[in-house]
C-alpha cells in the first residue's frame, strides 16, 4: 500500500510540463547517444549536468535518468546491426544479436533486446520502490562510525573492482577525497589549499570536474582517434516485429537469471552492468530451452543479457538514495544534481523530501515506457545515426562542454577547471590510470570528513566506537577481509602445497 502511495505521489510530481518534458528529452537523448559511435551516457550526463542548475531537482534527475536508461536500449542497436557495442555492457547482446541479424532476423533480434531491456527496467524500478524504503529506515540507524565505515567499504569495493589496478584506483580515490577538502573548511573557516586563488575559496566544484574528466577527455579521444570502420549492410534492415516483442516471455528462466544478477550486481559499488550481463549470459547457457548454440543467434542469450543490463539502473540508485554512496561514475554525476540543489542523499531524504524519492521511482518506471514508445516509432532512422562521424561529435562535445561548464556559474574559472581535468582525463587514460574513483572520491569526500570529525570529536580522538558498535565492526571486518583475502588465499595455498 505504501508503495502504491509512493508511486501515485511520484506520478503526480512528474505530471508538470517541465518535468515531463525533461523526462522525454532525456529518454530521447539517451537512445540517441546509445546509438552514436563513441558517445556514452557518461559523457552526455557529464555535459548535461551544468544545464540542470536552472531546473527543478526532479526535472534534472529525470533528464539524467532518461539518458542513463535510454543508452542501455540504444547500445543494443549497434551491437545487433553493426557488431559494435554502444556500451561495454552491450557486448553480450552482440554475441547472439549479430548472428541473428546476419540470418535475416534483425527485427526479431532488436525486438527481443528491447522487450527484455524493458522488462529489466520495469523490474528494477519496482525493486527500488520495494527495497529502498526499508533499507533507508535501516540506514537511518547509522551513526557517524557506520557512515565512515560504509564509505570506506564502498571505497575498498570500488578499488577491488579494478583488480590489479587496486593501488591506482585507491590513489585516485584519495585524490578525490583531497580535492573535496579544497576551499574554506565549513567547521573552522580556515582556507585549505586555495593557493591564494579567489575562485578556489568555494572549493573545486564537481560540475566542471565531471565535464572535464568524462566529457572533454572523451571528446579529445574521439577527435584524435581514427574513424571506426564497420559493415553497414544490416543497418537498412532495422525494424521491429510484434512476435519478437512477445518472445522473451517464452524464456522466463533466462529472464529471471538476468533480472536477479542485474539487480543484485547493480547494488554493489563499481562492479557495473558489464559483469552482470556476462554472468547472466553464461548462466543462461545452462539449461537453455532453445536448441540454437549460444554465439550463433540463441534468443535466450539476448534475453538474459538485456534483462541484466537494464535491471542495473534501479539497483544502482538504491545505494545513492539510501546511503548517499554512488556505485559508479554515472550515478555519482546524477548525485551531483542533488549536491547542486543542496539536497543530501541518504536516509533523511525519505522523510525530508519524499517527493524526490517518489519522483525518482516514478521516473524510472515511466522512462521505460517512453523509451519503448520512442523506439517503436523511430528505430529505422535511429539506426542510421551509426553513420555519424565520431570526430564531428567530439568537436560538438568540446563546444558543449565549454558552454556547459561556463553557464554553471557564468565564470571562466569553471571552464578552466573543465579544460584542465579534460587534459588530465586524457593523460590518465593514456597511462591506464582509472578516473572514475576520483569523481567518486570527490562526491563521498565531504560526508566522509564530516562523519570522521564528528565521531572523533565526540570520542575525544578515540577510535573505539569503530569496534564497539556492531554494524561498524561488521563493516570493518568486511573491509579487512576484502583487503587481505588474496593474501589469505595465497597463504592457505602455500600451506596446502607444503602439506602435499
Amino acid at each position, binding site marked *: 500500500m505504501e508503495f502504491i502511495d509512493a508511486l501515485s505521489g511520484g506520478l503526480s510530481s512528474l505530471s508538470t510540463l517541465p518535468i515531463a518534458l525533461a523526462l522525454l528529452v532525456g529518454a530521447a537523448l539517451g537512445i540517441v547517444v546509445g546509438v552514436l559511435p563513441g558517445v556514452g551516457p*557518461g559523457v552526455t550526463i557529464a555535459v548535461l549536468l551544468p544545464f540542470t542548475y536552472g531546473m527543478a531537482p526532479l526535472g534534472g534527475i529525470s533528464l539524467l535518468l532518461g539518458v542513463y536508461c535510454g543508452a542501455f536500449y540504444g547500445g543494443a542497436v549497434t551491437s545487433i546491426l553493426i557488431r559494435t557495442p554502444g556500451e*561495454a555492457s552491450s557486448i553480450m547482446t552482440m554475441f547472439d544479436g549479430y548472428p541473428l541479424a546476419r540470418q535475416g532476423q534483425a527485427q526479431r533480434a532488436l525486438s527481443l533486446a528491447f522487450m527484455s531491456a524493458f522488462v529489466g527496467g520495469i523490474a528494477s524500478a519496482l525493486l527500488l520502490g520495494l527495497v529502498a524504503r526499508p533499507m533507508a529506515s535501516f540506514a537511518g540507524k547509522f551513526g557517524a562510525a557506520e557512515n565512515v565505515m560504509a564509505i570506506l567499504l564502498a571505497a575498498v569495493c570500488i578499488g577491488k573492482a*579494478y583488480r*590489479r*589496478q587496486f*593501488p*591506482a584506483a*585507491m*590513489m585516485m*580515490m*584519495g*585524490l578525490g*577525497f*583531497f580535492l573535496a*577538502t579544497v576551499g574554506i573548511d565549513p*567547521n*573552522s573557516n*580556515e582556507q*585549505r*589549499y*586555495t*593557493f591564494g586563488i579567489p575562485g578556489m575559496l568555494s572549493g573545486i566544484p564537481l560540475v566542471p570536474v565531471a565535464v572535464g574528466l*568524462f566529457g*572533454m577527455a572523451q571528446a*579529445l*579521444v574521439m*577527435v*584524435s*582517434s581514427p574513424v571506426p570502420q564497420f559493415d553497414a549492410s544490416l543497418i537498412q534492415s532495422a525494424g521491429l516485429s510484434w512476435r519478437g516483442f512477445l518472445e522473451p516471455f517464452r524464456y522466463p528462466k533466462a529472464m529471471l537469471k538476468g533480472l536477479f544478477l542485474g539487480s543484485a550486481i547493480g547494488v554493489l559499488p563499481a562492479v*557495473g552492468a*558489464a559483469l552482470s550481463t556476462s554472468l547472466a549470459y553464461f548462466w543462461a547457457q545452462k539449461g537453455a530451452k532453445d536448441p540454437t548454440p549460444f554465439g550463433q543467434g540463441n534468443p535466450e542469450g539476448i534475453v538474459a543479457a538485456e534483462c541484466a543490463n537494464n535491471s542495473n539502473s534501479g539497483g544502482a540508485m538504491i545505494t545513492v538514495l539510501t546511503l548517499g554512496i554512488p556505485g*559508479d561514475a554515472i550515478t555519482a554525476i546524477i548525485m551531483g544534481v542533488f549536491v547542486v540543489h543542496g539536497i543530501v542523499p541518504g536516509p533523511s531524504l525519505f522523510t525530508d523530501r519524499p517527493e524526490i524519492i517518489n519522483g525518482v521511482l516514478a521516473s524510472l518506471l515511466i522512462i521505460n515506457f517512453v523509451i519503448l514508445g520512442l523506439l517503436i516509432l523511430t528505430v529505422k532512422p535511429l539506426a542510421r545515426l551509426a553513420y555519424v562521424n565520431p*570526430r564531428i561529435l567530439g*568537436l*560538438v562535445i568540446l*563546444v*558543449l562542454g*565549454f*558552454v556547459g561548464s561556463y*553557464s554553471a556559474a557564468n565564470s*571562466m574559472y569553471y*571552464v*578552466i577547471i573543465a*579544460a584542465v581535468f*579534460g*587534459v588530465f*582525463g586524457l593523460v590518465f*587514460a*593514456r*597511462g*591506464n*590510470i*582509472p*578516473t*572514475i574513483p576520483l569523481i567518486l572520491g570527490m562526491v563521498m569526500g565531504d560526508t566522509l570528513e564530516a562523519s570522521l*570529525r564528528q565521531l*572523533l*570529536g565526540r570520542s*575525544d*580522538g578515540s577510535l573505539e566506537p569503530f569496534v564497539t558498535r556492531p554494524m561498524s565492526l561488521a563493516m570493518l571486518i568486511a573491509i579487512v577481509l576484502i583487503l587481505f583475502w588474496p593474501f589469505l588465499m595465497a597463504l592457505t595455498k602455500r600451506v596446502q602445497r607444503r602439506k602435499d
Partner: protein
Amino acid sequence: MTTLQSRRSKWTWDRLFLFALSFIAVCIWYFSTQLIQPYPHNANWFESAALFPKLSLLIVAFAGLIEIYQRRHQMASGESEELDSSAANVQDAISMVVAFALYMLAVPFMGYLVSTLIFLAVGCWLLQFDRRTSLLLAITLSVTMWLVFVKILKVYFGHAWFI
C-alpha cells in the same frame, strides 16, 4: 649494461607520471602548515582541519608508490568502463587542446559566436574535413549554439568586441 638498460626501460612515462603525482602529494602534505590559513597549531589532532586532507594525501602517495612498484611489469588492462584512448593520436589531441585553450582565451574578447565559429573552423581543418563540410558545420553549429545558449537560455559571456 643489459640489466641497467632493462631497468631504465621500465621507467616508462606512466610510472614517472605516477611518481610525480605521489611526489606532489608528499610536498603538499609537508607544506600543509603554509597551505592551510591560518593553520590550526593549537587544535587537537582529531579536531584539526588538516587531518582529513593530510590522510587523503598519504593515501595518494602510498597507493601511488605501490602502483609504481606493480608497474615494473607490463600490465594487461582488463575490461572496464574507463575511457579507452589506445587508438588516440597524441599529436592530434595536443593540437585540439591548444585550439581549445585559444578558444577559451578568445571568447571574452571576440564574443561567443565569432570565437565558436573560428574554433569549429580550425577544428575541422585540424581534423582534415573538406572545405565545404568544414564551412557548413562551423556556420550551422555556431549559429545554433549561439541562438540556443545566448538568445534563448540567456547565457551572458560578458561584453566583447563582436557578438
